[in-house]
């Protein structure tokens, strides 16, 4: 059985999306910047996609700027805003300790090369940022607040609307990385007082290599990609027409089935969580429960076992999952997100993430519930850490 449970890493481009994209490779290949009539088709296709993306967010099409990825949108929002604000004497960035590296490494860059003062807000044991902490961190030098909409590792949904309202009141621009959230949640940038929002197509059954930044009318962060006059002179480089078309299509389809998907994913998520808690002793769910958790995220730590071994054992059974363990990465540090939630290193090393989606079936949930307890038990039996842990439990 092939069981793909890593939808947060990426999703397959859906057949309808691919179909919509196909005419924009060899057939309507015209450069949208060209004057002749043939290029109008390309221009029209991009503008249609812009409207589709805008509609899903309750934004105006003129507020959507296509980028090469969600990471690029994050880079643009942070670098563009801070570079401009620093000219006006504001050099403070507020973000959180659980952001994606697209934000964290950009913040580190700004600190290192531009002397930006960065505040990393802590989170509680479920991964929530406190609105009060945001408020307390704001100074008269604060140029931007960037808090992710929902966390990619543990699925915690942040109080974005409250933070948005606070920032609006304090007149500080608010950016949110919604790369995961946009694939699962209803987002209304106006109602939520969001000024900037990053998205990526491949997390929502669109193609890789295309993202977008929502920029509220009137905001003009410095450009990030310099060159031609594409995207109204705000983001240079010849448009990835097929990718943009696919993004628009993917977003429209996603929006049309959002409630239905949310319901079925949440049910399966909760069944998998309950089943694992029941079948695996001392299993720990990481993150929040209920509607404060992304409907497709399941993240556990199993004391005594290391995440990479679980991934490889699952892979041998045809199951694709993910871990926050350092052993699956190029660094030796475990997930910064799990450490920020207060997990001990050995628990962070033992984390396992399943992210379900359109490829998931009820049979697959049963299958995981069937094979994972055995895998964990077998690896625990050869672990000195598990042996030590059992002694502490008995005492």
């Amino acid at each position: 059985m092939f069981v793909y449970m890593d939808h947060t890493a990426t999703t397959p481009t859906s057949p309808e999306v691919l179909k919509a994209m196909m005419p924009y490779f060899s057939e309507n290949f015209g450069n949208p910047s060209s004057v002749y009539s043939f290029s109008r088709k390309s221009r029209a296709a991009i503008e249609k996609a812009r409207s589709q993306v805008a509609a899903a967010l309750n934004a105006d099409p003129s507020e959507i700027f296509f980028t090469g990825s969600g990471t690029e949108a994050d880079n643009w929002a942070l670098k563009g805003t801070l570079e401009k604000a620093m000219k006006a004497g504001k050099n403070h960035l507020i973000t959180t300790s659980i952001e994606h590296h697209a934000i964290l490494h950009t913040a580190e860059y700004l600190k290192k090369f531009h002397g930006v003062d960065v505040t990393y807000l802590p989170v509680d044991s479920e991964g929530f940022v406190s609105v009060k902490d945001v408020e307390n961190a704001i100074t008269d030098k604060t140029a931007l607040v960037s808090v992710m909409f929902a966390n990619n590792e543990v699925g915690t949904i942040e109080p974005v609307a409250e933070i948005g309202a606070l920032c609006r009141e304090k007149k500080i621009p608010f950016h949110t990385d919604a790369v995961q959230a946009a694939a699962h949640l209803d987002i209304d940038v106006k109602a939520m007082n969001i000024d900037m929002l990053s998205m990526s197509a491949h997390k929502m059954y669109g193609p890789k290599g295309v993202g977008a930044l929502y920029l509220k009318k009137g905001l003009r962060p410095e450009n990030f990609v310099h060159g031609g006059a594409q995207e109204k002179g705000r983001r240079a480089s010849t448009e990835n027409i097929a990718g943009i078309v696919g993004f628009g299509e993917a977003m429209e389809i996603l929006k049309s089935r959002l409630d239905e998907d949310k319901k079925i994913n949440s049910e399966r998520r909760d069944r998998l969580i309950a089943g694992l808690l029941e079948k695996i002793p001392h299993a720990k769910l990481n993150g929040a429960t209920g509607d404060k958790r992304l409907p497709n995220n399941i993240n556990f730590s199993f004391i005594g076992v290391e995440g990479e071994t679980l991934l490889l054992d699952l892979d041998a059974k045809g199951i694709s999952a993910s871990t926050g363990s350092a052993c699956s990465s190029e660094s030796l540090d475990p997930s910064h997100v799990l450490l920020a939630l207060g997990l001990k290193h050995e628990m962070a090393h033992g984390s396992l993430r399943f992210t379900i989606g359109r490829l998931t079936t009820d049979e697959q949930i049963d299958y995981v519930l069937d094979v994972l307890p055995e895998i964990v038990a077998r690896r625990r039996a050869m672990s000195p850490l598990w042996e030590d842990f059992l002694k502490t439990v008995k005492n």
Partner: protein
Amino acid sequence: MALDYSQKVMDHFINPRNVGEIENADGIGEAGNPKCGDIMKIYLKVNPDTKVIDDVKFKTFGCASAIASSSMATELIKGRTIEDAWNLTNSAVAEALDGLPPIKMHCSVLAEEAIHEALNDYRAKNGMEIIPMEHHEE
């Protein structure tokens, strides 16, 4: 990040040799710590007359390469004298596994250290001189 392990590593990870504990072991050694994500524990049974390692078992918390390194290291010292076993280097373990990804070389170092700890534990218990060890900080 996907890591490409050799078939040998995968074989020793999926079916590790010499897993377990030895009751009344003659020497026990442990290396690593939970912070780095690897802990290895080695148990030895040594023939008192020949000083040959008659049996060896391990328990390991860690990634696939840590488990494979433990498994391979125990295979390499089983049936050898305690002097021979001391000379087993981490690179010999890695080589026997047809190589480890560079970032995972510390797993083989851990195997060498755990074996040295177990051998010194045996030496201490039998009134032999303790051999100084290098400790690798991670």
